[in-house]
């Protein structure tokens, strides 16, 4: 089992430089908006979500995680034509949950990252759909095969992406 329970003292907490903390989310937002124009299938990926999970798990701070999720989600919302807050709420919860998990579990290896991303992607989609339908009244189509396929694709991408983003980590 890749996920191992560790005591809080054993878990390393990382921090990021200010440029990295700003530019990485912005780059994720940019790629999410730009790449689907050339490759439409790319819209099944949610790069901002992966960045939220990465930062939340690495920082292991619940407040930092939920605030990161909130800001990135709101920015992502503002690029759509729908009301602002749908992605914001979903990513706030994911940021909080991922950082809570990061405090208790060692999620540094590829297997644990794969599973964490898989689970949090589905959680994110459930919250998004619930809020969009319940609060905003949007008619969205829920399809388990599609969601699970997207979750798997995002989980695979997360393993590769997190390995790249590890280079920006700084030990506290």
């Amino acid at each position, binding site marked *: 089992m890749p996920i191992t329970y560790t005591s809080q003292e054993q878990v390393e907490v990382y921090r990021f430089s200010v440029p990295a903390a700003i530019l990485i989310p*912005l780059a994720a*937002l*940019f790629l*999410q*908006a*730009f790449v*689907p*124009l050339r490759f*439409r299938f790319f*819209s*099944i990926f949610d790069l901002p979500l992966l960045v939220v999970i990465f930062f939340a798990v690495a920082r292991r701070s*619940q*407040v930092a995680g*939920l*605030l990161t999720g*909130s800001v990135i989600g*709101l*920015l*992502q919302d*503002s*690029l*759509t*034509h*729908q*009301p*602002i*807050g*749908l*992605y*914001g*709420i979903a990513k*706030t*919860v994911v940021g*909080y949950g991922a950082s809570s998990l990061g405090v208790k579990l060692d999620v540094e290896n590829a297997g644990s990252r794969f599973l964490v991303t898989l689970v949090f992607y589905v959680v994110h989609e459930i919250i*998004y759909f619930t*809020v*969009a339908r319940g*609060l*905003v*009244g*949007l*008619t*969205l*189509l829920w399809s388990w095969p599609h969601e699970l396929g997207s979750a798997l694709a995002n989980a695979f991408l997360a393993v590769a992406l997190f390995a790249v983003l590890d280079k920006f980590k700084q030990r506290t």
Partner: protein
Amino acid sequence: MENLITRYRNVTILVAVLFAQVLGLAVQVKRTAENESTRLIRIWAVNTVTPLERGIVWCQASGANLWHSYFYLRGVRQENRDLKAQIEQLRLQQVRLSEDAEQARRIQALLGFKEQFISQTVAAQVIGSSGSEQSRSIYIDKGSRDGIKTDMAVITAEGVVGKVLRVFGSTSQILLIDDQTSGVGAILEKSRLQGVLRGTAAGEVVLEKVMSDEPVQPGEKVLTSGGDQIFPKGLPVGTVTKVSPGPQLFLNIRVKPTADLGRLEEVLVITQQEQREPEVSEAGRVRAADILAQRLPSVPDQPVAPPNQAPSKAPSNAPNQPPPPTNGLKIPVPPSGPAKPNVTAAAPNSQGAGNASQRVVANPKPSSPAATNASTPTGPAGPAAKPDDTHKPAPPAAGAENPTGTNAAGVLATPAQAKPQPATQTAVPPTPTEDKPQ
């Protein structure tokens, strides 16, 4: 209490942030689009992301332009030859189509139709998308500084793309027609059934509000109906791919958009539309009646004959008899009663040149005596024309009862009325060379 908040600090912050966002959502849902409360944050986000997108698109376009314009020129000469040949073919086609268009315009004028013209467009490059499967919208590199406004139609050469949803300084957000919040007034090309084109949650496009007992076949083209006051009438939207019984009494018609919404690079924003009655020149008005005269089924082709051997319909144009019914089509005639077919015959030669050149184009049936006779008066410009001769029979006596070709009510003489008139002009031989179609 204080201890409780300190103990559950993180959860408290989470609840507070979530509550703030839910409150914000509720406010946005309540407010209308005009009274948008989130404009500032959208401007920040768009201004943060789009400059980079714009830069990359510019670099990409410049690189492609450099490559295709200066390096990769293989086959360009052959392509140039092919295109020239194609231009020649299209010119011939254009003559025929412009003739049809001119006729259609005249008939529209007769019926009091108003035409919609796309009088101004702005070309724009697609620089980004929303990045969400639930929001099918794109960004273009033109904004309010370029005259873009909300609710303007966005099209490509293939068909309709969407409409302008939000406008920023140098960027605009376009809502695509496959988004489920979009709606386009549409009409089926053959059956002329009207409906509303909408996107679905799955990203498909469907035509709604068509009754289930209507005959709709796959393959039929869907055009804009103009009823939404955004898209001009007659633009191609898509093709029917599947028809099945839908909910309640309506059909479920699936439509494939003609524009490839997944590969948009450049679009046109319709910044100005005009609605006006079709402009028909004086000569055009006259010729609209001529065209009707040629096309009415009740008017058989008649050979030119002397007055005493005129067909039986000729006497119906006797001065004291009322004109036959005209199907309610009235031609607006200026008070001065300008030259109509008969008067054209007596018109000064100076007018003849311009009119004749147009007439030749619009009278493609030289075999029809009606056509040849109707065009005979325009002789001055024709090669076989003899202006003096054509003027001789032109006085009112020769032109039957009314030199203007109109009756007392201002209604232009119908074909039946106009028909015998050439017969009275037997002195003027038909000039078939004038009426040869180009």
